[in-house]
């Protein structure tokens, strides 16, 4: 290519070098500013999660390197090879080069094989499922709430956690686990596919109806006292966004106490029927058996509530007033169980009773007079 007599284009190597340096500087700036942290998963809190994070770091480094290399070539070509007015003759009509084709087939093959092997190794490490884990939890995902059953060594249920979300004010709720112990979780669903996902574990596993999935994890000892958010990660219907849960890491001693309390609560005799008027409501097929109830004003009343849906589908009967304020918030009960719900005295008026998990399908009018 001829150069114009009036200006000399910069030597190729110099421009190439500048482009590469700028790109590397950009990447370095991103990481040094801390903004690069957003391109990494959050710090893992389980042994398995840390393995996944280690693998991610390697994949990420390879990804950045490949991106910088190829993008540098693109940027370089775009800057350097613009057609100039002096370019009248065609450039060299290179059709290809078999040697470079072989090179850029073999080297990427090597790279992906390397990535596959380290991924496979990590997968084997994190997929260990032992015959005798320290703790067994049976997680049931129903539309739209998680339940956690704690099992003893022989697989018998000792306690059920029906409140999947940790309430910071009451300290109740959530799936507590002891740190430093192996926790084996089995997953079941009575309805549709869900997924058990805890971002801080860098891990999720689908809950497939008709198939019991199983995985294990061990929370790091220094995470005791931490609460980790979890969420359903497989579209499961109109309440998908609400299927939240928490995993609570406790010291083994605190966990034992927590489990004892939950066991007591699970086995407690149900509250007796309070005095006062009593209504009867049944839930089945994600519907209440009535859409209108009546109660006298100014008197506490009760509802005997039977949940006839399958185990794993929880319901409750909450009440909100005409302005939408919730005036009665009951604990949910599992399918196949019943409860005596006590309600405070309400002033006369029109209220809505609803299931807090399925408000769209399950609601009705409560007339208090």
């Amino acid at each position: 290519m001829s150069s114009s007599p009036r200006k000399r284009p910069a030597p190729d190597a110099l421009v190439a070098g500048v482009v590469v340096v700028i790109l590397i500087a950009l990447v370095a700036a991103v990481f040094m500013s801390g903004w690069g942290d957003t391109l990494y998963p959050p710090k893992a809190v389980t042994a398995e999660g840390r393995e996944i994070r280690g693998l991610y770091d390697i994949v990420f480094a390879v990804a950045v390197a490949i991106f910088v290399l190829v993008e540098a070539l693109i940027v370089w070509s775009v800057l350097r090879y613009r057609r100039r007015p002096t370019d009248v003759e065609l450039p060299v009509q290179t059709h290809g080069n078999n040697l470079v084709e072989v090179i850029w087939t073999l080297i990427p093959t090597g790279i992906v094989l390397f990535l596959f092997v380290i991924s496979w190794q990590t997968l084997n490490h994190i997929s260990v499922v032992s015959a005798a884990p320290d703790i067994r939890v049976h997680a049931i995902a129903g539309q739209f709430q998680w339940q956690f059953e704690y099992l003893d060594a022989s697989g018998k249920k000792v306690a059920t956690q029906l409140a999947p979300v940790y309430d910071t004010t009451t300290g109740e709720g959530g799936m507590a686990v002891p740190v430093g112990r192996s926790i084996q979780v089995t997953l079941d669903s009575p309805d549709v596919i869900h997924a058990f996902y805890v971002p801080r574990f860098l891990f999720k596993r689908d809950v497939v109806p008709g198939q019991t999935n199983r995985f294990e994890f061990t929370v790091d000892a220094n995470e005791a006292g931490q609460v980790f958010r979890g969420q359903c990660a497989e579209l499961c219907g109109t309440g998908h966004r609400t299927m939240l849960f928490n995993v609570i890491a406790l010291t083994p001693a605190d966990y034992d106490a927590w489990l004892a309390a939950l066991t007591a609560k699970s086995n407690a005799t149900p509250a007796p029927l309070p005095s006062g008027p009593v209504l009867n409501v049944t839930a089945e097929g994600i519907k209440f058996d009535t859409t209108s109830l009546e109660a006298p004003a100014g008197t506490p009343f009760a509802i005997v509530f039977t949940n006839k849906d399958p185990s794993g589908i929880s319901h409750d009967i909450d009440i909100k007033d005409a302005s939408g304020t919730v005036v009665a918030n009951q604990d949910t009960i599992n399918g196949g169980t019943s409860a005596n719900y006590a309600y405070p005295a309400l002033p006369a008026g029109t209220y809505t009773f609803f299931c807090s998990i399925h408000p769209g399908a399950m609601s009705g009018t409560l007339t208090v007079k």
Partner: protein
Amino acid sequence: MATHALTPAASTAYRGGLYEWLTTTDHKKIGIMYVVNSFIFFLVGGILALVVRAELAQPGLQFLTDEHVYNEMFTMHASVMLFLFVIPMLAGLGNYVVPLQIGAPDMAFPRINALSFWMLPLAGILLVSSFFTGGAASAGWTAYPPLSLDGPLKSPGSGQDLWIVGVILIGTSSILGGINFLVTIFKMRAPGMTLFRMPIMVWTILVTSVLVVMATPVITSGLVMLFIDRNYGGHFFDPFGGGSAILYQNVFWFYSHPAVYVMILPAMGVISEVLPVFSRKPLFGYKAFIFATAGIGALGFSVWAHHMFTTGAVFLPFFSLLTFMIAVPTGVKMFNWVFTLFRGQLTFSTPLIYAIGFLTMFLIGGINGAFSASVPVDFAIHDTYWVVAHIHYVLFGGSVFGVFAGLFYWFPKMTGRMLDETLGKIQFVLMMLGFNLTFFPMHMLGLAGMPRRIADYAADAGWNDWNMAATIGGFVIAVSILPFIWNVFISLRNGKIAGDDPWEANTLEWATSSPPPPYNFDHLPEIRSERPLFDARHGQTGH
């Protein structure tokens, strides 16, 4: 010479009139109708996306207090974009271009070609009508049972059924089109046009058509089975009646994975046409390109279960290895493209600008997909916004950018007029900015734990800023479409006259008038290489 020295208004190439367009079997008119119909559905799918983004801009449910409607929005956004925009748009470009590029007078089966087209607006109406007949499908474009079966809290109502029928119609249209392309390409090439002298666009349509013919019927069978489960008491996929939800996923992804190559390969074909023309050099590694394309097509049939890594029902090492391997032929193509630009003489017309945008965006999309090939990493990022980032980098940054490169490149051939370059560049800048602003933050959202398909998120999860950024980006993309629509409108009326070969291009479609006569060619140049027009222009007789 074949040039007609007529202004396009007086051109005999297009006999006008509604009746002509409704009854035509001319592949050029059919191709244009495919493009127009697909673009309309691009707008429909885009509006659905804006509704999704508007709701997600801030935590709390603002507009869609009924999460069911939100689920309909993203289900139909994806279904419309994939089945009524991307696949048919690329089929339409292929329909227009392939017979011209191989020197044929039309497709092998022109009447079936017309049938294939007209099934699309029909299917589109069927799909969109579901919004007005009790609610559209809402179980995701993947329609996994049991959620997509009948029942309270699942998918009662006709929306899911209309979806099934609509998609089966579209699939049938696709299969007929694929058969048409294959017979045309194998049997109707002009003398001298051996398989290894065909333009890469034709090769990508060839491989795409093999995928379409072999894979699409499998999803038809899966959707038929879903329909039977929903309406006739069947038990294919109902886990509590002896069926298997995982069976559906296997049948579904056996098609839907090759389908993504159906969605990208013709766009790669466009890039492979544009880069050489605007670099004034041949495509680097033409044969390697063909083998890479065939390799992607073949490997594409073997990786479907990488969409199911978290189900616990997949033989993980096999699918992980093959998924990683697909990166190799894809990389070969990327390097070949870059080395086409390298040491070329680049003219930055809009087609080239979009092609270069494609290169970077698809590079990102390919790289972030490789993360999912690593099974443990996939355990972290599956079903999160990372995957949304990946799919949009390859489908928008890849396919859509390829579509716009193709539209700007072939608009002059189709209409006889050039599109305006300034408007094209404004469109590109806005689209590039908007696109990256929308989808790059989704990598961060996915890593931070935001799952897909949720109508709302907790205000304290740390996702607010990225979501707001993504929504702003989405509206910037919407704005970027306006210069394009304006551009088409004014260029059709007043655009610069194109002539036969405004780009100094290489392939046969530029050896006839713009637009071509109904029978395509008055005469053909001698065909001695994959660049017959280039050879004719430079007096060469092949290499």
